[in-house]
């Protein structure tokens, strides 16, 4: 009778279309975001995350419009991220119908944005996105650091300590993405997932690398994640959210059915 683990399909949206690249090359078109969101809502998704991967200023209005349309038809929680830099950006997305906003690079440049935002809007709507890569060599003690710009730019910031700091500043949830795994379909990076879920008292969403239903289950049972996020296994019709839930429930994971 515990809290159910959540499955969160992720819509990476570029110029108004759902896309999903493999390591950011060979981007495939997966459809209209409103239609895709509606489908996941009907399939029993527990939440939906919308990541605006263009996030250039010209595209902002398109994003706001799309979020408004999704929020009118989808009655599960909706998180919006990508290019969120200020309290005004957060307010715009919440007013458009987002329930939560995900802050990524801006939290690195200005950590106080996280505390200001959670004080203003409540920590329940502030998700901090953490993009990490393993920086230690094989055989060395594992060390993961934050990267920006789609995993291209190192910051030198250690991931576990950063997670604790974000939680202390008032983040309501962490969205942890392994940039080594994102788009590879090799499964979550479970070592860092477990380290962060053990280190903080707020919920952690595992992301990056899901290629099979077993990967989703592993994120919970081995990584300790409270929620698992995936894109391509759902977008291209390989699996429905319902199949994923049935699979995870069969492994003894509490799911909403």
């Amino acid at each position: 009778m515990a809290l159910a683990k959540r499955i969160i399909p992720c819509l990476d949206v570029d110029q108004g279309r759902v896309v999903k690249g493999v390591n950011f090359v060979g981007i495939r078109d997966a459809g209209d975001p409103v239609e895709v969101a509606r489908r996941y809502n009907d399939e029993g998704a527990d939440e939906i995350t919308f990541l605006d991967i263009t996030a250039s200023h010209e595209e902002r209005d398109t994003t706001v419009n799309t979020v408004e349309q999704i929020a009118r038809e989808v009655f599960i929680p909706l998180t919006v991220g990508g290019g969120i830099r200020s309290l005004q950006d957060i307010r715009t997305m919440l007013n458009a119908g987002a329930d939560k906003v995900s802050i990524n690079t801006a939290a690195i440049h200005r950590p106080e944005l996280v505390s200001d935002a959670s004080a203003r809007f409540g920590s329940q709507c502030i998700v901090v996105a953490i993009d990490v890569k393993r920086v230690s060599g094989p055989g060395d003690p594992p060390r993961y650091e934050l990267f920006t710009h789609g995993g291209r730019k190192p910051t030198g910031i250690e991931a576990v300590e950063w997670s604790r700091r974000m939680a202390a500043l008032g983040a309501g949830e962490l969205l942890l993405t392994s940039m080594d795994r994102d788009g590879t379909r090799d499964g979550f990076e479970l070592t860092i997932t477990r380290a962060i879920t053990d280190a903080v008292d707020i919920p952690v969403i595992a992301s990056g690398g899901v290629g099979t239903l077993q990967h989703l289950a592993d994120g919970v049972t081995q990584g300790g994640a409270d929620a698992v996020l995936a894109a391509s296994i759902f977008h291209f019709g390989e699996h429905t959210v319902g199949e994923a839930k049935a699979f995870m429930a069969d492994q003894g994971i509490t799911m909403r059915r």
Partner: protein
Amino acid sequence: MTQRVAVIDYGMGNLHSVASALEHVGASEVMVSHDPEAIAKADRVVFPGVGGIRDCMEAIRQLGCDQLLNQVLNVQRKPVLAICVGMQALMTRSEENEGVPCLDHLPGQVVFFGESHVGEQGERLKVPHMGWNVVQPVGSHPLWQGIAPGTRFYFVHSYHVVPDDPAVVAGTFDYGLTGCAALSQGNLFATQFHPEKSHTAGLTLLKNFLNWDGTCL
């Protein structure tokens, strides 16, 4: 029954979700407002809420929503649905933000889950209580019609309501303790979870609210 619904807007965040959900289940008109005259014309009223209680209470008092709610609840006696922080604001006092006096419509406290919150088997429970949890209805209130005991609803909160009178508890959840998922008193029904974010089950509850005459059996 006409389905004109007012959603009380005291400037604290996203009310689109609840307005869209009410329209989706058949409300003919949804007004998002804090204008007493507009709200007086509504058949029923939703009192939502998100964010910190101190800012909420400040906004509620500044905009006169405390008097407005008193009118709606006690004088006009319209059916009222309070959601999440809306429910918490109706209690006597909240522990959040170093202690904040609330509207005291229902005697009781709003208390923190606690640091290092643990479950029955000693397992660590994260706070906020965020996600889909099982709700057990207490009694047979009209708002539970068509909703099976044990249905999951979406919660997101770090503080929970403890009413002085246990008889007002209309539903419970378990999260390291048995908490109050819903309250009912006369023409008021209140939920800690978010029906507007709880998919089919939440939409059923909202539809029941639209058909509710404001009495309990």
